[in-house]
């Protein structure tokens, strides 16, 4: 069993694992600061909070995990007012975000250093924080 973690994603143990046929294996899923998990799949597993638990392993398989920055923007180097508006339309239910956008625009709350942590929900707090960033307040 091997793992394939994209930029910003961490899957532990990271080294290839050998398990008895029919057994399962648990992996710890996390990210680098400022990232959020976009997707994880492989080996018939399911995510359970911060863990990914495979199905019963009967053959070689690979677990892939991807992450993206919680940067509140779709293009460019900084969020824009258009990004804040898009985030608002997500909260209003008039725009359905992609899986990646659900992570990108989920920036609030911020940690003590002002870096995006996210909480799995896109709401007005994300709109406000992205709007502030769009006018130059903050450094993430």
């Amino acid at each position, binding site marked *: 069993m091997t793992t394939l973690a994209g930029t910003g994603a961490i899957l532990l143990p990271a080294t290839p694992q050998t398990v008895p046929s029919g057994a399962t294996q648990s992996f710890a899923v996390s990210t680098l600061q400022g990232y959020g998990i976009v997707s994880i799949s492989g080996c018939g597993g399911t995510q359970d909070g911060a863990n990914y638990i495979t199905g019963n392993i009967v053959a070689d398989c690979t677990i892939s995990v991807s992450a993206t920055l919680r940067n509140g923007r779709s293009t460019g180097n900084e969020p824009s*007012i258009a990004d*804040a508006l898009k985030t608002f339309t997500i909260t209003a239910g008039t725009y359905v975000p992609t899986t990646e956008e659900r992570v990108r625009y989920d920036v609030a709350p911020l940690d003590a250093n002002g870096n995006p942590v996210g909480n799995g929900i896109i709401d007005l707090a994300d709109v406000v924080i992205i709007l502030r960033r*769009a*006018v130059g307040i903050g450094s993430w």
Partner: protein
Amino acid sequence: MNLCMYVGFFLISFSRGVTNMKLHKLIIIFVLMILTLTACGGGDSTTPITTAAKTQAILKLNLTGTLPADTAIAGAGFTITLPASVTPEIVNNTVAASVITPSGTFAGGTQIPPVYTAATATAPGKIQLTLVNAVAAGVTQVGEVATITLKITNGVTPSAASFNLSGVTVIDTRGNPVAGMGAVVSGVSLQ
């Protein structure tokens, strides 16, 4: 010169063609009597004074409540339900930039373009707005945060109580909701 004066001058001029002096005088006296009796004798014969109908309602929007210690406000969101015959200026299908201006503690701040839902036969119109202030450290006072300029028609004269505020959400500088906060329309001036 009004219509009565024109009629008077016409009749007096006509009388000049009458050669009989007594008849000429009688015509002039008769004309003056008629003009007096028909309220053409002067006084308040001018156009009545009317008050111009109000066309704008300017609202002041205030945050209320007690801000928790060590908390600073980054921004806020509101939904304002509008009374009948009160609407925002619309340009290219969006709310005009002049409709909502961050003011008071939010002066110099910015906003996302407000979202306007027009009134229907069964539901009033409403505006959703989200504002942030310009202070990097956030603001630590409640009070005025926005000035909203709306169009009024049909002679309505809305008061502060005519506007309903809902969905009031205040966000601190860490991106957390601030509990116990509210908002009111603190005043409306009509122009």
